[in-house]
């Protein structure tokens, strides 16, 4: 069975570690790639154009290129624009949330403060039928906030 390829872009090392551990706890049939800023994410995606991830988790506050800019660049690129993107950030500002949805995010996950909650959120997102939902996103502009 093909492993689901997940890309996590977050500059916080601890958060990346929590994420990786939680992901293992949720689903072993996943393959995680970690990056620490928007620029390296874009470079990576363009290199992996034939082997793109199935889902991207993108932090917002990052050095070099933040999550907002990275999201906008991905949606502008015809080869990358269909990629499902979940924002994964500490910000709970409505302004930030609205802005990411306007820029084309599919899901917004506020970083939880318990490991259990993190696992629950990841489970919920990973178990979604992405092909089905991506269709929905296109048709109905379906957005989800977890």
């Amino acid at each position, binding site marked *: 069975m093909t492993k689901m390829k997940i890309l996590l872009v977050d500059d916080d090392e*601890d958060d990346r570690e*929590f994420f990786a*551990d939680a992901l293992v706890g949720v689903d072993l049939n996943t393959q995680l790639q970690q990056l620490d800023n928007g620029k390296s994410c874009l470079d990576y995606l363009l290199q992996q154009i034939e082997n793109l991830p199935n889902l991207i988790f993108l932090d917002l*506050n990052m050095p070099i290129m933040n999550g907002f800019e990275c999201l906008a660049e991905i949606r502008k690129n015809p080869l990358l624009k269909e990629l499902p993107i979940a924002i994964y950030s*500490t*910000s*709970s*500002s*409505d*302004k930030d949330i609205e802005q990411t949805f306007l820029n084309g995010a599919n899901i917004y996950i506020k*970083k*939880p*403060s*318990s*490991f*259990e909650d*993190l696992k629950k959120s990841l489970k919920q997102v990973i178990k979604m039928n992405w092909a089905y939902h991506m269709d929905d996103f296109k048709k109905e502009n379906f957005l989800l906030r977890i």
Partner: protein
Amino acid sequence: MAQEAQADTPRFKFHIRCRDRIALRNRISELEISKMFSEKLLDSSNNVIAYLEPFFDDHNNIEDFIIKYVNNRIQEVASLDTQEMIGMRWLEYDSQNIENGAFENAKRCFTTGETINYVAKYIFGELVIWFSARVVKLEDGVVIFLKDISKEKQYERQLEIQNKLLLEAENVASTGSFRWDLKKGTLTLSENVYKLLGYDQPFDFEPTFESILSFVHDRDIEWVRKIVNDSKNKKERIDITFKVVTNLGEVKYVNTIGEYYPSENNWYVVGVFKDVTKQIEQESILQAKNAELQKSNSDLEAFNRIASHDLQEPLRKIQMFISRLNDEEKGKLGSRFQNYLDKVISSTERMRNLIANLLSYSRIEDVEDKPAKIDLNEILTDVLEDLGERVSETNAKIKSDKLPRNKWSSISNGTIVLQPHR
């Protein structure tokens, strides 16, 4: 000769006498008709007409006048009886003729032969009558023509009162009005406009647009000239606020509104000048205060950003690590340490709530206060749980009745409750 002889005959003389008598009678009759006609004519006049002859004292000075004739108009105007008046001495009949100057004018007219016009006021009971009078010398007396102008006087008075009221209103509202004749190029200004420009009295010449422009502040003058000239071409309403420097060197802000209207092959602009200095000053104070407020808001927002990220983030990490510790070590810790860990977990959670609620309270942008249903019994339970140790240490006893459940805006459950929902 024969005729002369005939004329001497008694019969002829009688014949002549008869003929003269008839002619005389006819003449008298004609005169009577003429007199009646004249009287009717005089009575039909809209003016009171009177003929007076002077009455001299021992030193040949005019002491009074005798009323020789007065037409019936006086009855209609002042309800006076002409028959009673005729033959009476004028001043004896009405001494008002001295007070209002009529006697002096009649005397002068008779003495010098000069025709005199004047205005005189008479009071008859409750009736006040104003006459426009003209006195003319005629043979041995004077004729006085009196035209009743009471209504005009009344209107004039009303107009005067209205103008005073308008002036008062202009004073109260710090406004002045103007009328601009575009053909002549001159402006008629109300008294208050002059006051607004620092003058006690109106100019003794008719001001033009350029003379008004000379009061406009150098910074605004070209702009005002352009706006007004453009509006003149399009006949569009003027509504502008600009600075003026008054005659006393004061700088004021003036708002002017003018509307165009056509009249007899000409255009006029009528409008008002309003001193808006106080409003503008208050507005700029308000703007300065707003700027201060904005700065303080942005400082607060900056604080929010720091607090929300820099303060919450480490706390979230602590919670995350504790949560992992708890997951990993649950069941392995002794009950004492497990209890400590539970307390750390609940304290950090409480701290997170405190920060979040404090932030939502201080967030200026989204002040929307959403009251929520809060059960005070639940809050009390939480608080008692938190304070459990201290309660048992101090042997405190806490009693409570059943507390209400209502809509409240809260900063933090269990600590501070604000503003009961109305």
